[in-house]
């Protein structure tokens, strides 16, 4: 195991006033060849993931939802079939034991239940939440990322990262304020 680093640099954080400035900066930073970047905004900014170069392929939530829905529905249907026709067969009004139309409402509900839980917990898991600590929370100004400011972070493990040069570059991209993010253990 590596020696745990204390007080290492996580990256540089640029602060912007409007989503437009953030988008412009994100594009600029990408064009300059930085790849380990992320943006932070108090609401979803349209087009920001494209500006950061995150394609649709990063998004596994729809696939997980489909799996959850299919899993819930199929399990639900065949479970009812097994219960009603095999495990605990009962003659109800002379209908066949596999009275499948009667199983549809529960199948439907379990499809929705499976899909919804997979969508929510899949989204949280892919986002690696809950995550109680993150170096960004050490930055006092970052509190406004949940209010009215927009942030762009160039992470220190980016091959192009250089503390002074990257800071100057962020300033040239119209950042109102540039802060070094430190991961203090």
């Amino acid at each position, binding site marked *: 195991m590596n020696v745990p680093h204390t007080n290492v640099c996580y990256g540089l954080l640029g602060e912007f006033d409007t989503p437009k400035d953030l988008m412009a900066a994100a594009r600029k930073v990408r064009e300059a060849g930085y790849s380990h970047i992320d943006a932070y905004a108090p609401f979803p900014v349209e087009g920001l993931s494209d500006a950061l170069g995150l394609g649709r392929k990063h998004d596994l939530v729809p696939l997980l939802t489909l799996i959850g829905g299919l899993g819930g529905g199929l399990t639900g249907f065949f479970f009812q079939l097994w219960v009603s026709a095999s495990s605990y067969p009962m003659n109800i009004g002379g209908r066949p034991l596999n009275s499948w139309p009667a199983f549809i409402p529960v199948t439907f509900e379990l499809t929705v239940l499976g899909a919804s839980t997979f969508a*929510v917990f899949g989204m949280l898991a892919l986002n690696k939440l809950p995550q109680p600590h993150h170096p960004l929370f050490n930055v006092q100004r970052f*509190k406004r990322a949940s209010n009215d400011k927009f942030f762009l972070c160039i992470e220190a493990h980016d091959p192009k990262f250089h503390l002074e040069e990257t800071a100057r570059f962020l300033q040239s991209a119209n950042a109102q304020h540039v802060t070094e993010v430190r991961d203090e253990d």
Partner: protein
Amino acid sequence: MSADRTSVNSPEIRRLARVLEPGHSYASVTDKISSIVLTRPVSIGWLAGFAIAFSLLMLLTGCIAWLITKGVGIWGINIPVGWGFAIVNFVWWIGIGHAGTLISAILFLLNQKWRTSINRFAEAMTLFAVACAGIFPLIHTGRPWMAYYMFPYPSTMGIWPQFRSPLIWDVFAVSTYGTVSALFWFVGLIPDLATLRDRATNKAAQIIYGMLAMGWRGSARHWHRYQSAYLLLAGLATPLVLSVHTVVSFDFSIAIVPGWHTTIFPPYFVAGAIYSGFAMVLTIAIPLRKAYDLEDFITMRHLENMAKVMLATGLIVAYGYFFEFFMSLYSGNKFDVFLVQQRLHGPYSGYYFALILCNILTPQLLWIQKVRTNVAALFVMSLVINLGMWLERFVIVVISLTRDFVPSAWGRYQATFWDYGTFVGTIGLFVTLLFLFVRALPAISIAEMRELVAHTSEEHK
């Protein structure tokens, strides 16, 4: 420019009626909404309202305790009316919940911007209404501690629930509905919980909101997945909400009892649910915007749109009543014809005419714009519709059960103090939860309001 010369009521101005009053910035919406939770002192009005609601909640616990002690015999239920208030109230509450999902899911898919400031508390209302609804079938079983029999678990007795029964469908529909509504609500809350975490000044609030926000930091990668999860949930909740009241209506329409056994039940139940739900959203929104000065966010446009939805769903409900009536007569089935006569002339005809008055006649006033834009009138109207929808379920349950096929099976139904106490008590539970909700969580989605600010400021440029 021409605004001064054009009448306030001209279609042009009305088209532009605002969903957000001008002059708001990201910071001002954050401040205004989060301050209700974080900095605003507890007012006398809140304490008084909470005290009343909480005493009604105590009435509920008392009624349930007495019910568990004595059994369901303390209620007015009998043979033939085995369902009584418990089912009337269950259907009423579950219907009320439907508007919350409609606002948060269906209006989201339809990209209706006016949903933004009302969706959060409408979703809360859904959850609380489902909680109230869930109590009734549970205690109506008589032995609520055995209710887990309804869930399929591998029991040592080797028995399973009967999946061909609409009552079991109901268990699955309502529990799925409760779960998905809670998930939808919580996902919507995550960014706002992060806002509260970052703005809270006392340690306890920071820790609690911090834990609930789960470390949300507004990363673009997170927002991306968040948005697709939210959209998918909206897409899933939409057929779900339609299915829930459909399944509730199956509880009736699968049976062969006259007045229940009709195919019009599912759509007319869903429309009725949305009708009563919007009425309840108005009942809550009107005092809420007044008490917390939220007129900038919950504007007349919102109230008027909700009034229009009520009018439209009210007309669907009226259509349902008419066809229920028509089909009974047209079928020539003597039991169905007899039931219609009993609704009009039987011992419960008063309830039937009150229902027509509340649900069909009074809402026609909503055609008049002056009524739709009059806050007091809307508030009264919403209460009338809530009452009307309760009467509808009473008429369906009681009249049909007291007048089925053979006269020897006819009976009467009289609710007791404990029936009324339990019903009023659930209103207490509902209002108590709402009072706690507005003080503990943002009643309006802050993140979505910021998005609205961004969109409106773009439009002005």
